[in-house]
């Protein structure tokens, strides 16, 4: 039934374009509104510059290459922190989902540390790792790790019992159960955990970069304030938001679509 429903949809490229238009239109509206408000009320550029000034400031940072340095540093930290966190959190989450003992022991600790996860770690991280890459990556790791581990645990424990029984009566060994049932079965939750965790990480990153480094988008933002370059501040904020939207829509959402949505394990949104 659902197969027929899919073929009745409008052609795929057209649908993609329409979805992109629907997504971009409100953002463009915001830009128009911004320019209108600044012009009509004649806002002081120190308080909030107009679109053209911000665009020129942005173009300047692109031309002198400083934007790429900052974006590159931020993305590199997020990537390393996130990958490390996923690599450790997923096996741990599965271990918690399989063993009640491990779960009982770790759950209170996770509750405690998930409250602390984020910029609360910056002071001690800078003591341990010094200012720069290590401290910030550690903060990212913390933001992603607990969310992914917790969601993996949730994923494993919500796999319907008949699926595990079915696998067992088809001759699945303990190890194969892990790779064939528990991991794919908890994937919807793992993907959710990664999306949520990276959202936290991206916010935490900007905060950490304001304090603990001398490159990155957060630093760019903070430095501009010292020189009263409001147009750079606004530009950096736009870049921060846009990068996250691009990461989420072009990287994370397609992964979700290609796997768990196709399997009918979550609803299409």
């Amino acid at each position, binding site marked *: 039934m659902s197969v027929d429903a899919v073929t009745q949809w409008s052609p795929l490229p057209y649908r993609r374009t329409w979805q992109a238009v629907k997504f971009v239109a409100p953002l463009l509206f915001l830009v128009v509104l911004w320019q209108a408000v600044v012009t009509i009320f004649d806002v002081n550029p120190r308080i909030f510059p107009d679109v053209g000034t911000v665009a020129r400031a942005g173009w300047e940072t692109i031309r002198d290459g400083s934007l790429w340095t900052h974006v590159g540093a931020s993305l590199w930290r997020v990537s390393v922190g996130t990958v490390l966190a996923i690599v450790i959190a997923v096996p741990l989450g599965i271990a918690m989902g399989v063993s009640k003992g491990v779960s009982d022991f770790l759950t209170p600790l996770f509750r405690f540390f998930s409250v602390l996860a984020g910029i609360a770690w910056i002071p001690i991280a800078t003591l341990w790792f010094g200012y720069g890459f290590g401290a910030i990556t550690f903060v990212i790791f913390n933001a992603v790790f607990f969310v992914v581990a917790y969601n993996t645990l949730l994923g494993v424990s919500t796999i319907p019992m008949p699926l595990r029984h*079915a696998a*067992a009566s088809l001759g699945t060994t303990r190890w194969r159960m892990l790779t064939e049932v528990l991991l794919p079965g908890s994937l919807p939750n793992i993907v959710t955990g990664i999306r949520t965790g990276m959202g936290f990480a991206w916010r935490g990153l900007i905060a950490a970069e304001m304090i603990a480094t001398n490159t990155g988008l957060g630093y760019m933002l903070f430095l501009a304030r010292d020189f009263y370059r409001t147009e750079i501040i606004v530009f950096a904020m736009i870049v921060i938001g846009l990068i996250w939207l691009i990461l989420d829509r072009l990287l994370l959402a397609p992964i979700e679509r290609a*796997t768990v949505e196709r399997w009918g394990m979550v609803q299409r949104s």
Partner: protein
Amino acid sequence: MKSLALESLSKTYFDPYRGTQFTAIKDVSLNVEEGDFVAVVGPSGCGKSTILNMIAGFVPATGGRILVGGREVSGPGRDRGVVFQSFALFPWKTVIENVAFGPKMRGIGKAERNRIAQEYLELAGLGHAADRYPNELSGGMQQRVGVVRALANEPDVLLMDEPFASVDAQTRMTLQEELTRIWEERRPTVVFITHDVPEAVFLANRVVVLTRGNVLAEVDIPLARPRVWDSLVEDDEFKSLSNQVLQLVRSA
């Protein structure tokens, strides 16, 4: 295929709210010959699903033994294939990957296990759906996959736990006819749990009536095969056997 024997099987649960023991299954003995088809019927809570879960090895028995081909078993194993009421197909695997799953666990190479799976899919009239995902199929088609997934692993005994209870009435009759056809072709040893008396009489060689964890009666079903609903629905022998079993279930 092998025979299945239950010897004085018992299951006692501890009820933590009352602080007392609760006996779900009392001293049940049952023999299912190699290639036989036995249906177990009874009202809700009579323990029929508990028995199946013990045979499958999902819950341990607290007394007695389960023998498959004379060998005592404990825990789940590929000698006992299970078909679930909820289908229990792996949603992240395509239809053919689901059916090939058992052979894959046995270490059979990809080409060979896909050939086996395709053969079983054809048997259930599902050859065209091999590359679809389970959520793209109707309930009836999903359960056809569930049945051949169990069969493709060549179990000694096929355990079916109210497999057609969650599909619509028309589909159910079609599935019942397909199951008898497949059984007549392949002669697997089957234990079929249901609360649907006509279904049990239609499918089985013998119907076991279970009440409060005990075997109340066993009724032989000598209806000729092949069995199809069109001829049986008005058949006097079918009707009288169904009535007989129904009376037993209701007396429980």
